[in-house]
């Protein structure tokens, strides 16, 4: 049992079980509980017992439900990495100041994934045990080396005839200059398209400069063409939030509604690549991000109240953590860390990384987190000193500042982020941006859950349980 005083009401306490079930108690009740002063006749006793915070008699009470919940929450441990990122090229036609992958000029094919490395990467892919694989093509701009996207897809599909895994192909792209031939291929293989839309035109173009200054127009055109060819649900968009973005939360949300998206992802900048070099211009502190998030969330809830379905993806995952024991395996919300255990990155030069952030550090000249090379079997990567280092720092339940935190059953560990920000894989929790963001988000949603109207609670519940809801549906109920 772990607990935390509510920041907005320190006389009330969030109490969590080892498997992430929870309740909020008055301080005096909680103190009586710990001191064995609660009567078995009290409703509070029954509530704590139902949430597996206490057991009346460990010799007679069954702990099987608690075991089942814990095992369910850690289910991602049993399958190995499900996300496999193939970097087909570093070439890109944008010059974003916060670029995290240190892109290369459009004509520089020396930074394309070659035949031999591509073939070896496919071999490595099928060494992992996961039955469900997401194969994501990234760059730079992967469309600039679409021949490689095509050949890798075909090789994976061919190999999968004997492997029989469930494979989802995704391409993370600006969607600029999409051709009909590319779209036809993607339709054939049921690709999902993931692009970036930072907000209204003035913001998107300011964040993502092209020589022609028309990134927004090209992105919308790509979204439209992608939807026509693959279906609306196949195209998703993410924001990258610069300091400029924090001034426009309502405008960003409104843009996503305007473009017909039903999901928005509000993620803060990370300290990698050009983002670190331009931090003075584009960066901001975590308190600024959390303030921005509150305003944006107000707008998102308002949009839903007006009858339009729109979820915030991280909020959905936080609510899922709070309301269910099911594991979604998202890298920031899992312990042990997702680095190398939830995701693997196969870079254009054959080097392999446990996360995209590790690749970004290498692009900045820090090779600390190179897991190995595609020419090596997976066993060698997992036996490497790097994986030992990541696991030493990647189990939140064993980290100072995390081990006693009430959120630890729901939260995660990110050794690479702590290394990048603080120079140490374990990090210092009181000054950790990762910790501040995580606790800030959990606090945000707990408070919204507590204080929210019936509609808001219903909305957040549906996010967590992944059911769509609108005000119209509520009124009809």
């Amino acid at each position, binding site marked *: 049992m*772990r*607990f935390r005083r509510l920041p907005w009401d320190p006389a009330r306490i969030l109490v969590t079980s*080892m498997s992430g079930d929870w309740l909020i108690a008055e301080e005096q009740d909680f103190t009586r509980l710990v001191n064995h002063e609660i009567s078995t006749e009290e409703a509070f006793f029954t509530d704590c017992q139902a949430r597996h915070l206490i057991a009346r008699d460990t010799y007679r009470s069954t702990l099987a439900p*608690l075991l089942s919940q814990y095992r369910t929450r*850690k289910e991602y441990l*049993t399958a190995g990495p499900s996300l496999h990122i193939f970097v087909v090229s570093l070439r890109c036609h944008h010059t974003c100041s916060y670029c995290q992958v240190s892109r290369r000029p459009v004509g520089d094919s020396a930074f394309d994934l070659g035949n031999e490395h591509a073939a070896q990467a496919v071999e490595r892919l099928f060494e992992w045990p996961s039955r469900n694989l997401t194969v994501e093509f990234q760059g730079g701009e992967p469309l600039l080396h679409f021949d490689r996207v095509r050949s890798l897809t075909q090789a994976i599909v061919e190999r999968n005839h004997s492997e029989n895994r469930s494979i989802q192909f995704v391409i993370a792209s600006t969607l600029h200059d999409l051709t009909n031939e590319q779209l036809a291929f993607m339709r054939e293989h049921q690709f999902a398209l993931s692009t970036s839309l930072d907000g209204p035109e003035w913001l998107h173009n300011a964040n993502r400069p092209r020589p022609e200054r028309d990134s927004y127009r090209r992105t919308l055109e790509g979204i439209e063409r992608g939807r026509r060819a693959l279906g609306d649900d196949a195209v998703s968009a993410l924001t990258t939030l610069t300091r400029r973005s924090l001034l426009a939360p309502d405008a960003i949300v409104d843009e996503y509604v305007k473009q017909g998206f039903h999901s928005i992802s509000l993620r803060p900048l990370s300290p990698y690549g050009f983002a670190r070099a331009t931090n003075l211009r584009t960066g901001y502190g975590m308190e600024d991000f959390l303030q921005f998030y509150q305003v944006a969330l107000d707008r998102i809830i308002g949009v839903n109240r007006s009858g339009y379905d729109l979820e915030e993806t991280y909020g959905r995952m936080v609510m899922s953590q709070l309301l269910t024991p099911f594991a979604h395996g998202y890298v920031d919300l899992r312990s042990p860390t997702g680095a190398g255990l939830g995701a693997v990155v196969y870079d254009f030069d054959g080097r392999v990384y446990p996360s995209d952030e590790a690749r970004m550090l290498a692009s900045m000249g820090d090779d600390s987190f190179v897991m190995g090379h595609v020419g090596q*079997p997976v066993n060698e990567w997992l036996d490497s000193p790097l994986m030992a280092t990541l696991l030493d720092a990647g189990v939140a339940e064993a980290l100072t500042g995390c081990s006693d935190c009430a959120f630890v059953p729901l939260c995660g560990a990110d050794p690479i982020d702590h290394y990048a920000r603080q120079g140490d894989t374990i990090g210092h929790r009181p000054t950790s941006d990762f910790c501040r963001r995580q606790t800030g988000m959990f606090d945000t949603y707990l408070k919204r859950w507590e204080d929210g109207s019936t509609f808001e609670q219903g909305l957040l519940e549906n996010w967590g349980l992944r059911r769509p809801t609108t005000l119209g549906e509520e009124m009809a109920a």
Partner: protein
Amino acid sequence: MEDIEVAFDATVYSVEDVLRATHRFTDRCVTHISTSPDKIHVRLAPVAGIPLEPTTAGLLTNAVVDERLRASIRRETGELHATLVKAALTGARPRSAP
């Protein structure tokens, strides 16, 4: 605000209770801990010249109380917790050679 000094009754709280609590304040304070026969003394000094909030002493006191409760819970449930985790994860598939 200048340095803050708080003394805790060593017959009620342990040094570990106080250590764990003061660690939570190391984002804003430099912490000094010392003991006398029946007291544990904490001195908090501001970091980088940023004054400490007037509520810091009260927050620290609450945090030490919380750590005392956590210690009590750990003593009572630590072994069971470890047993349950081991039982729950026994089924995790071991990595097999290709």
